């Protein structure tokens, strides 16, 4: 299939998934018991007052109407206004997105920096103690809940050693040094937990490479095992690793939300939790919609990145003999 056609098709899938997700998000949030009018007026409010406020906020309209007006707004970049604060949802989201984005970015990079070398050694030394140790450590790491890992790191690096702040956030614009200091522990927490999961995949991807003929060829021309794996293994192994990374995006986001609450970072997670508690539905919908958008966008990019990694797929796209 042609490259352009492949991209067009992938974009089509992307749009349809987004529409489906928007409907699902809308229905689920509206299925939550209680509403924002009740929260705003308090438990003592008369039913008349609640009804009046609901009408003001447009909550008395039929659900399909509410859905389409919300969806129509999104299409022109308007996610509505928070019922509670009256601020545009987008204005609430923007600073939060930056926090979560940094956390996820550093978390993923960190997890790769840990998992790729560790997984390579685990594959190469799989029959001796370094391999066993790494595999065992990864198993242990997977059993550690994110929040507990975070608390442990805070105890060591913030409470005992006083190297890093225990929680809070400073924006990059305000003070880059403080910004970095506040992100180290949260990113490390996310990275360690993700790395524990990734190591197993990296290990098996590289074990596969070790059994390939081209690895033996690389050895026969004079590469040592580790260097042969670096030179000819990484790109080949990354074809399967990218798939795993794409699938892990949603897990990383969920992890980020937990990490945010451990370190009281003002990211999407805390915004979402507060909004759910206050039944600020438009904020909930907007936040979840953004998260879904991020996950779908990343998995679309993962799909297209195969073209960069694997020349066989790129060729198949050009010659019109590949599949989507």
């Amino acid at each position: 299939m042609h490259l352009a056609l492949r991209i067009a098709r992938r974009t089509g899938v992307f749009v349809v998934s987004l529409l489906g997700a928007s409907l699902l998000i809308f229905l689920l949030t509206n299925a939550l018991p209680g509403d924002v009018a009740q929260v705003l007026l308090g438990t003592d409010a008369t039913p008349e007052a609640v009804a009046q406020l609901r009408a003001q906020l447009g909550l008395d309209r039929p659900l399909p109407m509410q859905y389409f007006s919300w969806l129509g707004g999104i299409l022109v970049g308007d996610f509505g206004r928070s019922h509670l604060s009256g601020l545009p949802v987008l204005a609430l989201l923007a600073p939060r997105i930056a926090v979560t984005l940094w956390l996820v970015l550093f978390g993923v990079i960190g997890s790769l920096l840990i998992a790729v070398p560790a997984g390579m050694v685990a594959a190469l030394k799989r029959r001796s103690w370094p391999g066993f140790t790494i595999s065992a450590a990864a198993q242990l790491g997977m059993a550690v809940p994110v929040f507990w890992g975070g608390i442990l790191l805070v105890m060591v690096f913030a409470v005992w050693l006083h190297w890093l702040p225990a929680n809070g956030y400073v924006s990059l614009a305000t003070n880059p040094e403080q910004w970095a200091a506040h992100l180290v522990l949260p990113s490390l927490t996310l990275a360690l937990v993700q790395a524990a999961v990734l190591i197993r995949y990296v290990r098996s991807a590289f074990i596969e490479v070790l059994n390939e003929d081209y690895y033996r060829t690389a050895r026969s021309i004079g590469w040592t095992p580790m260097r042969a794996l670096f030179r000819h293994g990484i790109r080949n192994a990354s074809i399967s690793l990218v798939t795993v990374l794409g699938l892990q995006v949603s897990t990383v986001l969920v992890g980020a939300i937990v990490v945010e609450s451990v370190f009281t970072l003002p990211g999407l997670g805390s915004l979402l939790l507060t909004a759910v508690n206050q039944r600020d539905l438009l904020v909930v919908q907007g936040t979840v919609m953004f998260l879904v958008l991020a996950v779908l966008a990343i998995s679309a990019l993962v799909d297209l990145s195969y073209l960069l990694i694997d020349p066989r797929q790129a060729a198949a796209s050009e010659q019109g003999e590949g599949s989507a």
Partner: protein
Amino acid sequence: MSLLEVRDLRVSFGRRRVQAVRGVDFDLDDGQRLGLIGESGSGKTVTALAVMGLLPENATVTGSVRLRGSEIVGAPEVALAQLRGAAVSMVFQEPMTALDPTMRVGRQVAEVLRLHQGEESGPARERVVSMLAEVGLADPVRIADAYPHQLSGGQRQRAILAMALINSPDLVVCDEPTTALDVTVQALVLQKLNEVLTDSGAACLFISHDLAVVSQVCDKVLVMLDGQVVETGTVAELFTNPQHPYTRGLVATARFDQTRPGQRLPTVEDFYAPDTSVGGRP
């Protein structure tokens, strides 16, 4: 001193120590071509990998393999890596999978050069293109810029041949280099192998199950059976006066010219019954 001296080579695998090679001895002089012939599982590939020091971790090797007097068995990996690709190189059986699918062919050939001679990319590229031409690839520039999947099996095998020969090694180990190719391409690749070996003066350890193929490349042949060498001789000696019944079977199966149409083709088993013979299987 011979180029390669193999003495009482024994290789076993796994905890149960299954013996794949059981005491093999041979010598290979500079420029000589030695054929190693036998059926699947006779230990010929394991012997070749032992010469390269490329046996898997679970292999136990005893005996001695000396290349220009220096011991290969038990040598440290770094020392072996310096020999491989420079003094001794290998051509594998499967051209379809032996090249890295994500790297251009020219770069893979140049890698061998740079790994051992530290050449800059400019002269390396010229050398690669001329080497690809030497192994008989028309349009070597295009081949150098192609990915392996864009080449045919014969083209890939010749690119691998170029990799094996670019550093002018003393010894080239060929493990069934033409088995995966169809017959016409096979003849072409063998002819090129002959030419480049003659030009470079490299010795060759040529492994095959096919006596007809071995006879096109080698002067001398070892017949392997169940991890042991059962017969040694020149190609002419083997064809005219095979001693071991297994060799007689091999010769008969290689000589279709003596079979009439409609007649049942000879098999090795017509000449050699594994249970009763000397050097037979356990």
